[in-house]
């Protein structure tokens, strides 16, 4: 299982790197789509099947298509060097490096270690005791199926945010129409 994870991980990182480095906007868009596919796969590995599907359908499908559409619409000629001057480069890489140095070590966290830090009782603690929700999710997964286990809390506990997102989307649509149309 972990071997498959690493394959997809490498695939995702490689395509992300290429997405940044391609000078042609179209190719970098396509490479981004490929990272999304890699991520979808990883989601499946992490037993979040519904999210994986959504990732592919909504994110890769809709959003990236929108990007491609806009890139095509503007048919930008390939800018030979799309990079910023070297000064911008140095700052960019530098900051990214520092950020990476801070974030990547988080990878060392295993559930057990996380549990120990979170729980106040001394001594090693069983992660399952500290994070009961994880098992409950697994049970729900089994009981209502992959989609059900997500849908059930979505329409009960998180109903209000759900409605708000619909309003947000409405606003976004109107905004996009107003901004993009030449004359109303």
């Amino acid at each position, binding site marked *: 299982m972990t071997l498959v*994870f690493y394959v997809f*991980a490498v695939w*995702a990182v490689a395509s*992300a790197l290429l997405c*940044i480095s391609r000078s042609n*906007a179209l190719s*970098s868009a396509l490479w*981004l789509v490929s*990272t*999304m596919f890699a*991520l979808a796969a990883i*989601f499946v590995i*992490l037993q*979040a099947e*519904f*999210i994986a599907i*959504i990732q592919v359908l*909504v*994110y890769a499908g809709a*959003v*990236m298509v*929108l*990007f491609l559409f*806009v890139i095509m*619409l503007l048919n*930008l000629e390939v800018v030979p060097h799309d*990079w*910023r001057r070297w000064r*911008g480069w140095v*700052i*960019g*890489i530098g*900051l*990214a490096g520092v*950020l*990476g140095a801070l974030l*990547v070590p*988080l*990878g*060392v966290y*295993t*559930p057990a270690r*996380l549990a120990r830090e979170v729980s106040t009782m001394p001594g090693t603690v069983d992660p399952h005791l500290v*994070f009961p*929700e*994880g098992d409950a*999710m697994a049970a729900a997964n089994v009981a209502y199926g992959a989609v059900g286990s*997500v849908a059930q*809390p*979505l329409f009960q*506990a*998180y109903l209000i945010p759900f409605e708000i*997102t619909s309003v947000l*989307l409405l606003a976004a*649509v109107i*905004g*996009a*129409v107003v*901004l*993009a149309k030449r004359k109303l």
Partner: protein
Amino acid sequence: MLLGPSLALSAVLFVLGVAGVLIRRNAIVVFMCVELMLNAVNLSFVALARLHGVSGQIMVFFVMTVAAAEAAVGLAIILAIFRHTQSVDLANINLLKG
């Protein structure tokens, strides 16, 4: 069970996203890098959802809707700017300044 590595992967992707935003001049590519960063965050959400329960996945769900909305509006703005200045080069879109 894969928590550590997926967090590390999410960190790397996030950092690449940040680098992309800082380096690239093309507005749309910068935009895409932002999308990449969002994906990285989604990954860490999902990874931790294993521990913290389904609320992690719901967060991803919401992140995606927000990302979609943001992409739509962002691209509309870029379109409007492009129509005005025939270029998407971020360096010389700097009217909004002190």
